[in-house]
């Protein structure tokens, strides 16, 4: 811009000077044919960005989705180290602290800031009402130890260890969320339960995705009779209420299977129920897309149908698929809680949020030991986080919108 010079025009008194050029600016820079197309660095980045990068940028603008994503990330990282995070082992119980209420953490003592501590309990058994009465005793201050050696565990069932993030003081207790009817710490069981509940969703969705893409892909690509048959089959499955399917399938899981196998069986069951939505979406997209030129070109070049579907057609709406899949995970988490409620979920000694909640499903808990309802909070958090994150993903999935 600095090489613009002002050219004043000639005086315009005489008539023959009327056609002379008006005052104007002239650039003395050399002529650059690509001037129009040159971009600023910012614009250039945008232009050459891949689809995924654009999705990411759009997602970042959706603040709630970002927060939700961060929470989910924290949860999933947490379940890889749950043995370390939990103050107690999953099965550790103390007969002396059955149905103990939560111990809040204090950091002030007489106005001074001190190391975090909890108050120990005075325990009394009321034999008239058959109640266990726990009174926090301000004199029994139990300072929480960090990075300490506590209950033994097997890290991922492979390596023994006993390092914990936080443990109770020696001879003390650390029941941040209280205990249950056998004296087991609820907080620790919730952390271990997260491992099962959160991964059930992932594996179940993986199963659904596979089924949905495969079947929907076949239906959409081939069309005609295959399409009609598959559509009818999907209608049969969809018009079926979930409950009886769950009950029957869970009932045939053999008794002799280990809890781990039962867990995988249950994820399979959950995954097999909901794939029809995905299959429908895949099918309709494929029906539209297979008329496109790039697909015809691939077919003409001799690509087999699997390659055409997998390499050419699918990537164009993978982001949409992922968004749909993310939105299915909360349904699986809730499905797992429903299965546990019906008594068909994971078997002990495995714990999940669903098992914890179905244990809490009676009037005594609601009226007398409400802290046992705490897993509801984590379920709500996980489900909401997945929903918002999935919504954000879906909004961002079509970046050219």
């Amino acid at each position, binding site marked *: 811009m600095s090489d613009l010079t002002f050219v004043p025009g000639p005086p315009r008194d005489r008539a023959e000077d009327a056609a002379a050029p008006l005052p104007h600016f002239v650039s003395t820079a050399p002529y650059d044919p690509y001037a129009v197309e040159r971009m600023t660095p910012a614009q250039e980045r945008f232009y050459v960005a891949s689809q995924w990068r654009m999705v990411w940028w759009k997602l970042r603008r*959706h*603040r*709630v989705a970002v927060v939700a994503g961060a929470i989910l990330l924290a949860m999933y990282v947490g379940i890889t180290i749950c043995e370390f995070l939990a103050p107690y082992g999953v099965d550790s119980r103390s007969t002396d602290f059955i149905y103990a209420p939560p111990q809040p953490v204090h950091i002030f003592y007489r106005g001074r800031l001190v190391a975090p501590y909890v108050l120990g309990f005075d325990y009394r058994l009321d034999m008239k009402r058959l109640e266990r009465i726990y009174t926090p005793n301000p004199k029994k201050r139990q300072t929480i130890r960090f990075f300490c050696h506590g209950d033994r565990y097997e890290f991922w069932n492979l390596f023994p260890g006993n390092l914990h993030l936080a443990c109770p003081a020696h001879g003390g207790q650390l029941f941040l969320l209280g205990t249950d009817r056998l004296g087991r710490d609820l907080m620790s069981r919730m952390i271990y339960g997260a491992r099962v509940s959160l991964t059930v969703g992932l594996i179940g969705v993986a199963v659904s995705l596979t089924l949905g893409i495969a079947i929907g892909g076949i239906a959409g690509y081939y069309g005609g009779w295959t399409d009609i048959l598959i559509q*009818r*089959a999907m*209608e*049969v499955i*969809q*018009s*079926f*209420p*979930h*409950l*009886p*399917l769950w*009950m*029957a*399938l869970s*009932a*045939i899981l053999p008794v002799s299977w280990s809890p781990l196998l039962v867990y995988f069986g249950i994820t399979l069951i959950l995954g097999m129920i909901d794939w029809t939505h995905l299959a429908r979406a895949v099918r*309709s997209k494929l*029906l*539209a897309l297979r008329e496109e030129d790039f697909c015809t070109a691939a077919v003409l070049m001799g690509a087999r149908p699997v390659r055409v579907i997998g390499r050419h057609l699918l990537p164009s709406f993978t982001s949409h698929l992922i968004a749909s899949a993310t939105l299915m995970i*909360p349904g699986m988490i*809730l499905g797992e*809680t*429903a299965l546990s*409620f*019906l008594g068909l979920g994971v078997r002990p000694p495995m714990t999940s949020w669903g098992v914890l*909640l179905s244990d*809490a*499903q*009676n*009037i005594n808990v*609601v*009226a007398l030991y409400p802290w046992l*309802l705490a897993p*509801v909070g984590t*379920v*709500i958090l996980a*489900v*909401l986080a997945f*929903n*918002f994150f999935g*919504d954000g993903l879906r909004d961002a999935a079509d970046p050219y*919108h």
Partner: protein
Amino acid sequence: MLSYIVHRILIMVPTLIAISIVIFTIINLPPGNYFTTYIAELQGSGETADLAKIQFLEKEYGFDRPLWQQYLYWAGGLLHGDLGYSFAYDLPVDKVVGDRMLLTAVVSITTIIFTYLVAFPIGIYSATHQYSISDHLLTLLGFLGLATPSFLLALVLLYLANVYFGISIGGLMDPKYLDQPWSWPKVVSLMEHIWIPVIVIGSAGTAAMIRRLRANLLDELQKQYVVTARAKGLHPLKALFKYPLRMALNPFISDIGSLLPQVISGAAIVSVVMSLPTTGPMLLSALRSQDMYLAGSFLMFMASLTVIGVFVSDLALALLDPRIRLQAGRRQ
């Protein structure tokens, strides 16, 4: 148009047959049958009085015959309109179901109305004020119902309603009105009790509806004709309601067909917790005890409802939407 209708009706028949086979298989998958389970229970609790009578029933109804024979017997009965006999209730199936259908319909319809009432304002607001704080808060509220496990929410609400409002626990009305004829206090009692199941069941459905309405509305609002209308000075609300909203409602009409069976079965767990005299608990206990005819015939009934419902809503859509009509039914 006519060929489309005939084509769909013809397709329904093999679909229903396939569904009946699936239902029969599912009910008989767990080991044993109603009689073996019931006999095991009786022997476990020491009540051996009527054992002989039960074994007599088992033979009478052919439960010692091979499975495919039992299937044909049941399917044949269905074709005659004979839904079979429920052993758990010791009554014909239609008597057991008939009583409960009315209340189930009442609860379901109230729930659907509640869902629409909550979802619409939130969905519309959410679409027009995308990404604002109030959008997020309202969506959070709408999704809260979906996120909470319904059985726990039902139990907690039951307890709180009893402690704070003195409402009797469970059921759809105070027990003393159960066999009384309809009167104003009975209606009041019904309304006092029905809001808990409606909220618990309905709040799970609001999320999906909010999301769908919002997505559809957003799509519509981007379109050319809306922009034109606004540019030409049409009042914003009118521009919203008169055209885009109607288009966005399209899927709701098409979904009503499959919505009713979903609500009926989705309410099963909550109905069990709250002990409502609806079809949900009846179905669950029939499945648990493998009461073949009750479970099977009722599931057939529900599945047929869905299939017919889908057909009807497809028909309605075809009538409403000229594009579909002209393409002679190629569904996307």
